[in-house]
């Protein structure tokens, strides 16, 4: 690839709006031109099996004859198995919803989980929960697959031999009988659970010499240290994003990851619509490309080592006393000054957000800046910490490892985390662990840590166990199980109860024992209300005004070094979702890679180092080295490489083991998020990466239209004029009128963050299969909705645009007339129906679809695995080999609403049918409803001046339309 230099730019040919999807396209390589000429990606539509023509015809003949014979059988016999005693409230055929919460990094998001006859099948957000308001992220959506994961650990083992929970309890109690806890250590992940904290405190009273260590690989230590630098204590920060008119992020991914991100995304984008004037404005300083930064009106990228200088420059410009002596001299000085002026002009209505992975000083400076801007109490709310013990996790883990090595730890209980895999390499955790005589690991999978512990205990999934968890603002949810443990798993609560000895042993009893005295009002009623609502009323932490005790000062800037940046993987996080096929196959939002991680470089740096996509390089740091494939990411800061944690697992399961490279091997306990001095060596090998990026390219047709507020005010037609006008509506066919309901969708591209929650939600709702890396390489992924990612501008600092693409439900659907068997036809309400039982698999429809949103079951992708069958939505057909499939607008939900409305004698109300993608969307970017109703949300959106149809010039009359992305640039920076 030779597009890093200025001379190379001259030969580039982005489309009329300057948009491009990949570097190959921008550079116009012959390979890319050849790819464009193909209807489908290479080999996507070819028969590659080594079956000759004769053998093929023989097989065809035989299967035809056999298929004919099967139709001569009598109906298959089935049994109906009713309950012996039916449970209360359960109506067969109707789903029930239970409130619970999903925790990541110990922070909860409220959920409503759909259950069919006792099987949890789909996760929705809990509208009453402040961190969700009805939406979820991709992790929460996909967490239900982990419940049914056939590779989950199923038995208690001791030294690899299957044994029982009882045997474990006996071994543990005899070991600890009469002990004061000397040498006993409990290692957990970050604990916000009030009950777990209460149990641990009780244990500490019983075993006064025991220790408790918390460790999360994606730790928020820097946040806590930054707070100590500023206030002398740990303070939790809650943002009121909806009040902010100007937001500056310092390497923060706060809209797409971290505490409260689902809520923040909703609040942020609520102020990105024309209707909600004035728009907010986002400035992003990124140290590696983030989704938040991709939404920014103005973005600069710097290396993480330069972030501190940027933060000081902001502090200096905004009158932070500690930064009085700062004079900014970095290349971004003018940009910072302009952003700072904007911040200053919006005192009390602005917000500076530091990223969790940024050094403590950046957090301290962000506190100082927000304080100087008068944002505290307005857009920034301080509360007590939500963690039960906001300790410095890395320090306590380091101390634990030293103790283990010194032989001072006799009994180690590891609850949930996987430190053998995730601990920084310099601690040599595994080696130290071997010195502990009695090691116990409670986990969902028999993973790397389990393999080095004598005792492995299967953990109950959060949908199987009682628990509680706090949200970003402290709101507590009591998690209730949806199903009895599939494999006799136990929760951390139950394991600690064994240690405690007396007292309740069952998760339910433990939970009730804790809450008995802590719920206000009559207990039974309050308990049931809390479970029903999914929130315990009044548990949000009250605002607090911490004393300002700054203990930081400018330090000498270190010498510039080539930098390696560590980040959690955007889809499999710290590695815990490695065996989750949905998340493995969910294209990573910016790279569109599936099933692998890669070393990400900027185009200029890659060119300087002579690297190309898929080259395998060796990254060496501190005596460790890994081999990683290269992926060039436009917008990446120069002279640095980003690697994502979570891959290269050895004992994750069938889907997750042995793929990608383990970036933890390069991580040091003193430099968790970035480090200098990485050495890069070429190996001369290459590894094919399964990116969904090149598939189904649209050439120069301005799929994503972008306008500024000013442009739109000046000329309301500006968006419509960016593409060819739709063809005149002349037809020889009689006009189609959909009386009653006319379903349609509108997607606000200005609010689409590109996070992929919709993709995961669609997969869960519609029983979409996972196909695997080989099939993705052939372009055969089965997602009914994909998020296309385009770039505009130069490759070093491009604008990133996202566009969710699903079946457009064209009124003049090109797929319909070419189907020889009428398997895709229009419904009375204007849906483009796909009838699986008619489909014979000619694939003509997909060939004729200009949006390429149809997906063919080339192989038997849907799984017959017994536990995975439990996961299927009973209201959607499980497709088998040889049929085409595509988005149905969640017709099962439309039908359910239509039946309900007829039974109630009321028409379907606006907002009553919520598609899976719409429901999951954190930023509310999707509107769905009846276009015949002029006051429905979707009708209003489609009447907006920002509305346009994709490829409408082909006269497909798409029912799904897009609202152009809105920018709100700072005029001062726009000119420059």
């Amino acid at each position, binding site marked *: 690839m030779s597009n890093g230099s200025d001379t190379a730019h001259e030969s580039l040919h982005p489309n009329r709006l300057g948009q491009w999807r990949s570097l190959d396209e921008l550079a116009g390589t012959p390979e890319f031109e050849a790819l464009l000429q193909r209807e489908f990606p290479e080999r996507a539509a070819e028969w590659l099996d080594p079956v000759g023509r004769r053998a093929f015809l023989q097989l065809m003949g035989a299967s035809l004859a056999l298929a004919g014979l099967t139709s001569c059988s009598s109906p298959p016999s089935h049994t109906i198995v009713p309950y*012996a005693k039916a449970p209360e409230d359960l109506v067969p*055929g109707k789903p029930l919803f239970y409130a619970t919460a999903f925790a990541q990094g110990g922070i909860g998001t409220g959920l409503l989980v759909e259950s069919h006859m006792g099987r949890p099948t789909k996760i929705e957000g809990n509208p009453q929960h402040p961190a969700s308001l009805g939406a979820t992220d991709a992790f929460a959506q996909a967490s239900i697959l982990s419940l049914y994961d056939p590779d989950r650990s199923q038995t208690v083992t001791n030294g690899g031999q299957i044994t029982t929970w009882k045997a474990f309890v006996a071994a543990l109690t005899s070991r600890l009988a009469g002990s004061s806890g000397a040498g006993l250590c409990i290692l957990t992940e970050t604990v916000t659970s009030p009950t777990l904290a209460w149990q641990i405190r009780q244990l500490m009273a019983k075993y006064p010499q025991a220790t408790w260590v918390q460790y999360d690989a994606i730790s928020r230590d820097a946040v806590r240290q930054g707070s100590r630098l500023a206030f002398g204590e740990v303070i939790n920060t809650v943002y009121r994003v909806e009040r902010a008119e100007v937001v500056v992020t310092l390497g923060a991914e706060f809209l797409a990851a971290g505490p409260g991100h689902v809520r923040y995304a909703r609040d942020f984008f609520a102020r990105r619509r024309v209707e909600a004037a004035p728009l907010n404005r986002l400035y992003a300083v990124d140290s590696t490309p983030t989704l938040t930064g991709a939404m920014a009106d103005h973005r600069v990228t710097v290396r993480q080592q330069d972030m501190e200088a940027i933060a000081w420059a902001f502090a200096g410009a905004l009158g932070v006393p500690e930064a009085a002596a700062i004079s900014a001299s970095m290349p971004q000085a003018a940009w910072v000054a302009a952003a700072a002026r904007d911040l200053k002009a919006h005192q009390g209505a602005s917000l500076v957000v530091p990223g969790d992975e940024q050094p403590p000083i950046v957090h301290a400076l962000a506190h100082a800046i927000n304080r100087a801007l008068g944002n505290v109490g307005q857009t920034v709310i301080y509360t007590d910490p939500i963690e039960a013990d906001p300790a410095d996790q890395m320090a306590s883990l380091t101390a634990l490892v030293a103790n283990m090595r010194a032989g001072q730890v006799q009994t180690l209980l590891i609850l949930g985390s996987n430190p053998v895999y995730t601990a920084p390499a310099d601690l040599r955790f595994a080696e130290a662990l071997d010195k502990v005589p009695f090691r116990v690991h409670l986990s969902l999978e028999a993973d790397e840590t389990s393999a080095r512990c004598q005792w492995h205990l299967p953990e109950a999934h959060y949908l199987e166990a009682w628990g509680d968890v706090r949200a970003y603002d402290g709101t507590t949810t009591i998690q209730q199980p949806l199903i009895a443990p599939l494999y006799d798993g136990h929760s951390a609560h139950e394991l600690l109860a064994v240690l405690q000895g007396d007292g309740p042993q069952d998760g339910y009893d433990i939970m009730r024992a804790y809450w008995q005295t802590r719920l206000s009002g009559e207990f039974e009623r309050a308990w049931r209300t809390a479970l029903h609502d999914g929130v315990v009323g009044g548990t949000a932490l009250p605002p607090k005004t911490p004393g300002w005790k700054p203990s930081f000062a400018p330090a000498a800037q270190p010498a510039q070094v080539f930098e390696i940046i560590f980040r959690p993987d955007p889809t499999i996080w710290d590695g815990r979702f490695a065996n989750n096929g949905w998340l493995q196959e969910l294209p990573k939002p910016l790279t569109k890679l599936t099933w692998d991680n890669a070393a990400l470089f900027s185009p200029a740096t890659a060119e300087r180092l002579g690297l190309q996509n898929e080259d395998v390089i060796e990254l060496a740091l501190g005596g460790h080295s890994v081999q990683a494939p290269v992926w060039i990411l436009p917008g990446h800061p120069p002279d640095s490489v980003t690697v994502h944690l979570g891959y290269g697992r050895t004992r994750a399961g069938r889907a997750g083991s042995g793929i990608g490279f383990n970036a933890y091997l390069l991580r040091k306990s003193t430099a968790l998020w970035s480090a200098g001095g990485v050495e890069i060596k070429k190996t001369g090998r290459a590894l094919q990466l399964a990116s969904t990026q090149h598939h189904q390219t649209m050439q120069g047709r301005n799929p994503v239209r972008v306008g500024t507020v000013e442009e739109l005010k000046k000329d309301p037609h500006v968006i419509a004029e960016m593409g060819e006008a739709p063809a005149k509506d002349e037809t020889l066919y009689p006009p189609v009128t959909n009386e009653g309901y006319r379903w349609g969708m509108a997607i606000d591209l200005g609010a689409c963050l590109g996070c992929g929650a919709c993709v995961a939600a669609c997969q869960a709702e519609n029983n979409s299969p996972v196909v695997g890396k080989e099939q993705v390489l052939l372009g055969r992924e089965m997602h009914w909705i994909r998020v296309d990612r385009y770039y505009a501008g130069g490759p070093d600092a491009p604008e990133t645009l996202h566009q969710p693409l699903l079946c457009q439900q064209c009124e003049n659907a090109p797929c319909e007339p070419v189907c020889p068997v009428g398997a895709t036809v229009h*419904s009375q309400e204007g849906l483009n129906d796909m009838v699986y039982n008619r489909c014979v698999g000619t694939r003509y429809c997909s060939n004729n679809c200009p949006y390429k949103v149809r997906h063919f079951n080339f192989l038997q992708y849907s799984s017959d695995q017994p536990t995975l069958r439990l996961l299927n939505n009973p209201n959607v057909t499980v497709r088998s080999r040889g049929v085409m499939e595509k988005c149905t607008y969640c017709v099962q939900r439309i039908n359910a609403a239509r039946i309900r409305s007829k039974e109630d004698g009321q028409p379907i109300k606006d907002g009553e049918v919520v598609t899976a993608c719409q429901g999951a969307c954190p930023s509310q970017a999707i509107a769905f409803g009846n276009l015949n109703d002029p006051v429905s949300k979707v009708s209003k959106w489609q009447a907006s001046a920002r509305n346009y149809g994709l490829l409408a010039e082909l006269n497909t009359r798409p029912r799904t339309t897009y609202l152009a992305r809105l920018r709100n640039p700072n005029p001062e920076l726009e000119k420059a």
Partner: protein
Amino acid sequence: MTQLFHRSTNTLARVTLFGAVFLVAGIGWGVSALLTSPYASGVGVPVEQPVPFSHKHHVADVGLDCRYCHTSVERSSFAGIPPTKTCMNCHAQLFTDAPMLEPVRASYRTGKPIPWARVHTLADFVYFDHSIHVKQGIGCSTCHGRVDQMALIWRVNTLFMEWCLECHRHPERFVRPRSEVFNMAWEPPADQAVVGAKLVTEYKIQTQTSCSICHR
């Protein structure tokens, strides 16, 4: 040059050509007869059950309403098969020693359900909803026949798509007043064409023939 074939071959050829028509027609008739036969559709074949439960006795003789057992028929897609508890509501008092009912008592004792044999089976890609049909005035007997006269249950209709569409295209031929839905003995009146059309308007019944109404 001598004739290769004897003259009689001509007759044979004529017979064969003529016969082929009958042969093809015959095969066609045979296949269609097989497909619509009780063997293939299950129509009219009583299904053996683990307990020889008689709808005739419980409905016609005892007078139970359909909904006493099929509780969710008005609320859900699935009409509901009663839990063992429902049987025991009466059979804790009646016929408590009948050997025929031992599987029921055993189920109640052990909590292990009775595996009833399914009579009406739809393909997995068909989604039928009882509640809306009942609500719109389609009676039980329209599809299930005179259940009150069956000792063991059998299918009276093929459940072929063609059969569904008969009603989905012309609901006025089958609709009855809502008050008669659970009446086993209801027969269409002589003026069903008039009454039915009136009910279709009154109940706002639409002719739903889009594929996605049943297939999704």
